[in-house]
Every structure is written in C-alpha cells, then in structure tokens.
C-alpha cells in the first residue's frame, strides 16, 4: 500500500512515537536550557562550575548509566518518581520517560548552542536598555532573547535531532515496548535481533537519516533567517 509506504503498523507507531518524544523533549527542555545557559553566561554564583559539569555529564557518561540513574531517581519507587506518581505523572516504562531521557541526553547540546549565542550578545546593549528604563526581565525579553534567537533555534533543532536518535538511556529507563516506548532506534535494534528483518530495519534506518538530515537543514535555514533579521542586513 502506498499510504503506509511499506511500513508495518508497529513501525509507524515507532516513527510517530519518536517524533512525539522528540517534540515534547525539546519544547519542555527549551526554557530550562535558556535559563541554565543565561545563568552560566551572565551570573556569578557559588557552584557555577558544578552546574556546568552537571549539565555536560550526559554527554560524557555512558548512556546506559544515565538511563540507570534516571530509573533510580524517577522510577516509581525513586525519590522523585514516587512523589510525582502521587500527582499522576509516571515516567518509568512510559513514553513520558522516553521524552525525559531524550531531553536529558540532548540538554548539553542545547545549552552549548544557546550559551554561544548569549555570549555573543553585547552586554553594552543591555546596559543601554537599562538606562532607557527597562527592568532586568524586560531587557532579557526585548534585547537578550531576540538577539540570541539564532542560537536558541539552532540549539532547539539540534536537541530535537539528538532526541530522535536517543537509544541507550531510553532503552535502559523505559525499555522497548512496541506501541508504548519503542522509538525508531529501539525498533531498529529490536528488528536486528530477529533474523530476516534486515529489510524492515533498513527502512527505519533510512527514516532516521531523513529525519536527522531534515532537522539539521531546517536549523541551518532558521539560523540564517534569524541572523539576517537580527543584523538587519
């Protein structure tokens, strides 16, 4: 059938889930990413290096370790997980957990990109805005944030692409339940475990490549447009 492009319902579910997980992960981590990047660039506080290290930890830790830590903390008997369960929010072995794992794994990339663009915003412009009567939060909303938009967009799309491809932490934290937590990478892994499924696996590999490449191109276009707008060229 043309409509299904040769994908089975399970494969479609994996693609849909991957997109949903990546979108949710990006949208919900973006405010935190901006906040942390701003704090690292503009504020001097005790424990700044520790925060910087913590943010970058998922980049260097084995993903399976990150996934296990998430399971310990956010599992139904974990300190935060049990608390959140009372509020009806469960992460372990749910697609929400996949989004959390993807967000944590993509966070360092997002913060790095946003940080670079915030560092490029001239503090002298923020000073000028303050002399014109703008409070700190207004300066941030009207000067800092718009000038950093190219980097913020680039960071968001990079995080989205990374979230699409997250595997190690995800499979450790939420396993690979078809239709519930099985994202494209876990589906590919599952298919490769079964003899004779290389064709299906290859189709999903192609999907992965197209999605990742598309996200990168999109981020490039957005960044170029935004920087044109900011420079006024």
């Amino acid at each position, binding site marked *: 059938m043309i409509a299904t492009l040769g994908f089975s319902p399970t494969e479609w579910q994996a693609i849909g889930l991957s997109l949903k997980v990546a979108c949710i992960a990006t949208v919900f981590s973006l405010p935190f990413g901006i906040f942390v990047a701003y704090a690292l660039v503009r504020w001097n506080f005790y424990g700044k290096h520790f925060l910087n290290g913590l943010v970058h930890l998922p980049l260097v830790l084995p993903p399976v370790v990150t996934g296990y830590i998430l399971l310990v903390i956010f599992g139904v008997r974990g300190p935060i997980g049990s608390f959140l369960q009372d509020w009806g929010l469960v992460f372990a072995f749910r697609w929400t957990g996949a989004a959390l794992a993807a967000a944590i794994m993509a966070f360092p990339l997002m913060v790095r990109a946003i940080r670079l663009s915030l560092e490029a915003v001239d503090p002298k412009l923020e000073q000028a*805005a*303050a002399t014109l009567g703008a*409070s700190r939060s*207004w300066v941030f909303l009207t*000067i800092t944030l718009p*000038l950093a938009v190219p980097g913020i967009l680039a960071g968001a799309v990079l995080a989205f692409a990374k979230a699409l491809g997250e595997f190690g932490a995800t499979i450790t934290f939420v396993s690979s339940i078809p239709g519930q937590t099985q994202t494209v990478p876990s589906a590919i892994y599952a298919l490769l475990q079964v003899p004779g499924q290389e064709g299906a696996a290859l189709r999903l590999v192609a999907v992965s490549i197209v999605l990742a490449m598309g996200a990168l191109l999109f981020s490039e276009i957005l960044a170029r447009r935004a920087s044109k707008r*900011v420079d006024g060229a």
Partner: protein
Amino acid sequence: MSLLISVHHKFGDFILDAKFEAPKGLTVLYGRSGSGKSTIINAVAGLLRPQKAQITVGSQVLQDSDARTWVPPHKRRLGYIFQDSRLFPHLSVAGNLDYAARASRRSIDTAHRAQVIDMLDIGALLARRPIALSGGEKQRVAIGRALLADPQVILADEPLASLDGARKAEILPYFERIRDETDIPILYVTHAVNEVARLATTVIALEKGKVLRQGPARDVLSDPRARPMGLGAVGAVLDAVIKAHHDDGLTELDAGGAAFFLPHVAQPIGAKVRVRLPASDVLLAHQRPSGLSALNIVSGQVEAIQNTSESGAIVTLSTCAGPILARITQRSVRAMDLRVGNPCCAIVKTVAIASDLGTDLA
C-alpha cells in the same frame, strides 16, 4: 533642576575623588582619558557603583552611600548617549526611539515624538534598521532615543569621538539646541577643546581623578593654570555677535567692542557665536603694528604672566573682548619687557581662528 555629584571611588592605583554641581545647561567633564570622566558619568547612570557617593538630581537622590540608597539604572530616568550609539540592531529606528516608552509602559507622547524627530531630521529613517544608517545618522537616532526617554538628566559620553570632522559638525548643533531649548541638565564627557568651547555652559576640568578647576566655560578655558589637555589646548574663549557679512567672504564679529574677521560664518547677523583663540596662535606687540597680514588686532593690558616651562610662558591680556591668552617664550617676555599692567596688542590670524572652528563653521 541641577545635578549634585560627590564621588569617591578607588580601583587599583587610581583614586577618583570629585565633587561638583552641574547646573542647568551643558556641563562638560573635560580631561584626558584616565582622568575619571567616564567613571563619573557611569556613576550617575548607575552602571557603576562607586564605593562612596552622593548623587542627586533635583530632589531625587540617585545614590547616597551613607544612607545606603542606590537607585538602579532603569529607575533613574536617564537619557544616555553613548560614543558607540548602541542602537538595538534587531529593532527599526522607530522601535529604538519608542523603546523607552514601551519599557516603562508609558503611552507615547506623539507631539513630543514628532518634535524630536523633526528637530533631528530623522523622519525619513524611521523604518530602517541601524545597520543601514551612516555614523552621523546613528548618532542622531541615539540622541532622539535619549530625548524620548523623558529624562531628568542627559548623559553624553564622547558622543562625537567616533565621527569624522564633517559628521561632528552635523551633530554639534543638535547639542546646542538641546542645551538652549530644554531645562534638562546635560553632562557631557569630552577631551576635545573645540567641543568644550562651543558647547559648555560649565566646565569641570579633571586630572587624575581630581577636579582641577570648575566654573563657567570662559573662565576655566582662559585659566592658564587649568590645562587638563596640556598647553596646546589652552586658549581664550570669546562670546561674540555676528555684525556683518562682507562681500569678500569674510564675516565680521563683535566681541565687546573689538572687531574680529573670520571666513564666512553661516549664521544670520545678530547671532551669538563663541570663538576660541588658541594661545599658541596669538602674537603680542607693543604697538598696533602696520603692514601686517593678520586682520585681527586687539589692544589691552597685561594681566598676568605665567611661566609654563623652562622657556615658555602664557601671557594673559585683559581686553575689551575679554581675556586673551598668548603662548610665547620667556625670552620674548624679557625682550619686550612685558610687565603686569603694560599696554599690549594681541594679533590673531583669521585663519587660526577659523581652523580651530573649522569643523564648527563648515
């Protein structure tokens, strides 16, 4: 409304210790870089917090370190014009002009806005982005943005320093108009003596963090002992009125009864102008000389002789036009037997006055 400033600030070896009042009009902080000018202006803006300071505008206390009062910059109602204009690159000219009103949730006073846009002649630029503006245009927009912030004090930190001569001449008249048409005190930082001569109501001469001398522009610039920019910048400032435009292209000025000739000044008869006579361009003679190419000869009496180095001296003549300073050698002082009270003539080349005002009178 006036501005009262008392600042004590120490960083490293540098100690700034200055106290002065900036009355209505334009007060110039005049001195070399490193004399503390920018520190003072940034303390008034609240961009820098001095260790000890009392800063008051009218009845509002901006900082009082004894009472631990410190108003943050955004609540100080400032109009700060920076050297590098600092227009917001992501906003249009109109967006820059309206920024202050939006930031303080004020409705835009359209009549005032139109008046400022008209005065600065920036109506045609409103839709443009700062990147599409020339240096002079940027600075005009920056001035407009500061004026539209409804400021109770205007701060200008070397606003002309990054512009070339012609652009400087384009901007200077706007500062004159702000000085003459508003009651807002203006604090203006510069090290350019011709800007001081042309704009200043009051001059605060700064050297190494201390106030060397303060007072009306004419008195401070004519004081041979107060020379924050060195001997080359010493010279008298005369207030004159345009008396006539002659057919040969010269303009005749009247300064207290003495006539001065300058290349054409594009201002109507009766207009008040300030003329600076650099001390190094003034010659002295016992009698009114004849057969000399210089057009401007004023007679007066020697008021003071100040030795400035091993060989140099500055002679102050009191004339009907005001004090005139001449920088000559001590050998000449001895050869002419100049003494306080002696009659004497000062000779100034027309071109010397013109070249100093060159950018101003272009």
